[in-house]
């Protein structure tokens, strides 16, 4: 018994396709459609936003420096030092961040509070807090290491290009002058002053549960 052979016809091109002319006109029609769409959008200013509307017809690129893509919340930008309610840094100079830093770009000079201050013995404060942004590799380990949410990289801004190396040494005041992407200088995590009776960690000790 002979095998059944299914003969498949070779795909052929029609005369219109072979003459190029029809196909070229079709191609021109397609590009013209895009041209008029793009022109009308740009002239009327109704350009779709490719971030929120990625499948929209027409212009699909950002007008970059004028329009910018919003960064994700977790995007790592320039560091900032978060504030307490009284405007001092939340940093307690525990040196966790400078220890975790693989580029060794963070320098902290810790200081003790005065003898009669309730915070003495409870925590320290940074006399100096310096980040060399040229050494920084923006890995975010400092943010991970920080036990009290004092250093964050949620400013949403790039490290700007500056014209001399000294300008890249950011000190405490400078780091505290940056706001987060939400525009505030705080973080959402609560801070508890020494002797705070509302501290959740002592609930169970008080027998609440």
């Amino acid at each position, binding site marked *: 018994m002979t095998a059944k052979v299914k003969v498949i016809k070779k795909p052929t091109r029609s005369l219109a396709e072979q003459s190029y002319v029809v196909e070229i006109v079709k*191609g021109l029609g397609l590009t013209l459609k895009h*041209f008029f769409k793009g022109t009308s959008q740009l002239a009327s200013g109704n350009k779709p936003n490719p971030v929120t509307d990625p499948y929209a017809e027409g*212009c699909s690129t*950002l*007008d970059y*420096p004028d329009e910018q893509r919003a960064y994700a919340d977790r995007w790592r930008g320039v560091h900032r030092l978060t504030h307490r309610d009284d405007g001092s840094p939340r940093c307690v100079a525990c040196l966790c961040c400078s220890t975790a830093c693989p580029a060794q770009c963070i320098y902290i000079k810790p200081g003790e509070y005065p003898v009669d201050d309730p915070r003495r013995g409870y925590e320290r404060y940074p006399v100096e807090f310096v980040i060399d942004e040229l050494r920084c590799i923006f890995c975010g380990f400092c943010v991970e290491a920080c036990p009290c949410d004092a250093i964050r990289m949620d400013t949403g801004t790039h490290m700007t290009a500056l014209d001399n190396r000294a300008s890249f040494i950011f000190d405490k005041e400078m780091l505290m002058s940056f706001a987060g992407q939400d525009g505030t200088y705080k973080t959402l995590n609560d801070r508890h002053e020494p002797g705070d009776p509302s501290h959740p960690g002592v609930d169970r000790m008080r027998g609440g549960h």
Partner: protein
Amino acid sequence: MLFWISAFIKIALIVGILVNMAAILLWVERKQSAMMQDRVGPNRAAIPLLGRRFRLAGLVHSIADGIKMVWKEDWEPKNGDKLLYKIAPIIAIVPPLCLFAVIPYGPTLYLKKLGETYDPAWATDAEQVASSVRMQITDLDVGVLFIFAVAGAGVIGAALAGWASNNKFSLMGGLRAASQMVSYEIAMGLSLVGAFMIYQTVQLDQMVEWQVAHTWGIFAQPLAFILFATAAIAETKRVPFDVPEGESELVAGYFTEYAGLKFGMFASGELVEVCTSSAIVTAVFLGGWHMPFMTLQGIDLTSLGGSLVTLPHGVVVLMGVLNFVLKCVVLIFLQLQIRWTLPRFRYDQIMKLGWQILLPAALVNVFATGTVLLFLNASRG
């Protein structure tokens, strides 16, 4: 006296417009390609004035480009041919500018009759002819043949540039440019023979007159129009036919070794060629300054059951020139659109298209036109 003054003004105007058109087309090309590729396109260069930044939708980039080209280092290949290297860009840009010399861009203007309705008797009135200005720099008897001769000279620039650069890529580009342009020159010339047979002339202004009296060339010679337009695009050495430049194979082809203003001359020469080829197609196939229902007297709607709206002679001439410009602009737009729509042909495909398709098709067109004309003449007795 009037002849010389008007000739000088016309030459200055046309050369000025063409050279500036190169800069404008650079912008059109960038912006148009951006629009059709769903991009925003150039928009950053700006002129700071009165505390504002004028961007003009990216047009300023052309100015910035021009300034950049002037200030770039004028580098020359050490072992190249110094003289040929310098004159090649000049040879590349001058022929496309010269082509416009024979292109009629409007009906003859009779200066003493600007406000009156056109009267065919003026054309034979010696006094009126003496005070008339032709909308054409010169009406050479050889007409289109002049165009072929000068356009053919353009290839010398590309070939010399490839030779004088002392660079293998340039030489390959020059070779390709020479072979491609010579091949398409033939198809281009032959495709017009059918048109010559119908128009019974090679003078462009008479061709336009025939088209005004009868019908546009595109309807009388549709095949010739397609062949000629294809060959004209090939002559400009732009994208579907840009193997001489061939970025992916030859760096930049015959102008690889050129920098600064010399490179600019090659680039603007190409864009000027786009303008001139559009103007030639307009004059030969699209009725020149003519529009349907437009005559030298005014707007003729009698065929639609309307009446003849007479217009002053000056207005008709102005309308004619604007018609010509409009048709050129549409054709230029179409050429740029083709440039950004079609991919580049392979070198052998270009040669095949030129010699095996366009050339035989042009010959067929010549024979068909001749046969039809013979029958028509025979039937008229």
